[in-house]
């Protein structure tokens, strides 16, 4: 595939198609609609002005997502007083309600996602929302793959606790559907006795 710099004429249409994905990641990072639109707009500007000299990437989406993360980090670093992250707007994650048919217990899922740290929310979005591989997500964040894996595991553990608390998931000690040797031996013994 050609590098981004070699596809200058089609960049605008490619970017147009990418907008929802970019905005999705921006929402995960910033947590507010206003800031996510602002970040998406700024990244579109960067992509359109720098595409002619981008020689390191063949995938526009990966490059744009990487630029978005870099810009977001730069803006955080530029804040006069480092402060705690503002809570995210759960409305941005209302899609989660629809996915679970708006059930009473799952109505809290959007809040759960909104309360995750931005970096974890972003990693979840990249992997489960945008379908990136761990390697690609690590490239976007500029970190080792192991860092992405750790972030994802933390999210899974937090969600597992959240589900258990609401009686939505299997209890940790419930019998798994995958058969294990002990169960197979018991079944075998039972058949022998019955015969």
């Amino acid at each position, binding site marked *: 595939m050609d590098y981004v710099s070699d596809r200058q004429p089609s960049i605008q249409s490619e970017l147009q198609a990418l907008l929802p994905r970019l905005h999705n990641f921006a929402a995960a990072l910033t947590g507010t609609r206003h800031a996510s639109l602002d970040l998406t707009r700024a990244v579109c500007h960067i992509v359109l002005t720098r595409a002619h000299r981008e020689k390191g990437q063949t995938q526009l989406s990966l490059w744009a997502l990487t630029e978005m993360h870099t810009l977001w980090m730069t803006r955080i670093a530029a804040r006069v007083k480092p402060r705690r992250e503002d809570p995210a707007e759960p409305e941005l994650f209302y899609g989660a309600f*629809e996915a679970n048919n708006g059930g009473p217990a799952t109505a809290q899922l959007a809040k759960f996602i909104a309360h995750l740290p931005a970096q974890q929310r972003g990693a979840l979005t990249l992997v489960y929302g945008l379908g990136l591989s761990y390697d690609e997500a690590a490239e976007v964040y500029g970190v080792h793959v192991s860092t992405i894996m750790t972030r994802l595991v933390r999210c899974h553990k937090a969600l597992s606790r959240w*589900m258990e608390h609401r009686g939505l998931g299997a209890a940790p000690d419930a019998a798994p559907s995958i058969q294990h040797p002990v169960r197979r031996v018991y079944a075998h013994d039972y058949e022998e006795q019955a015969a």
Partner: protein
Amino acid sequence: MTRLSDELLLAYVDGQLDRPQAGAVAQLARDDYDIASRVKRLQETQGRLMESFSAILRTHQAQPLNTVIRLDDAPESHGFFGLNIMHIIAAALAAILAIGYFSMGGEDSAPSLKVAERLSDAPAASTWQSEVANLHSFISRDTLSSPEQGQTNRDVIAVQLSRFVRRAKPVALPDFSKHGLTLNRGQVMNYQGQRFMQLAYIGKEEQPVALYIMAGGADARMADLAKSDVRTVSWASGGVSFVLAGFLPQDAIRALAVVAQNQIGN
């Protein structure tokens, strides 16, 4: 009981392991109750997360973003005040020539030649290859010992390298083990907005040797360059530029460059 990390199990559940690794984990999950239980819980949370995040993406796709973010507002061309950089360079050169022409007395003299001579006498702009040699002079064994910097996973480095040399499949990393050097790390760096990759090799005692790879550049034969104690060999092939740099004699660097050239296959 086999103890597997949550990270490995999650990579298995998310389908991120290659086939032999996934097969091994699946076998362990069949044989070990604890692992099976942990896999099942991860599958449950994975299902809910995938459902939720794909639904969130669908809601973003349904929004009329085109009206909020107008790509037409962004400058269509790049460069200063929307001018193409080549136009700026051409205008600057024309201005220099015109100034030179008129200051030398117009058509009666031959100012163009003198301007051209002056331009040729000016020091050549530093190239990426010479900058890399400068960069390499700052690298030592100590700087490579920091595990926080760069990628040490050979598979990930191979994938990154394949992107730089425009191959769909991972590229075999140059192997200098027969020459006493092993791959220490791969790192993506920036030079004036363009990315390049550094593959650093280290021996038992020697200072590091590194192969620098950047996309672009017309095909060029091997050329030697020395900057202080750093010796380099640069070449370009198949639209990719390479520089091999190290604190070794020029012949040794050239021999390693031949090895790298053959192994990468460009």
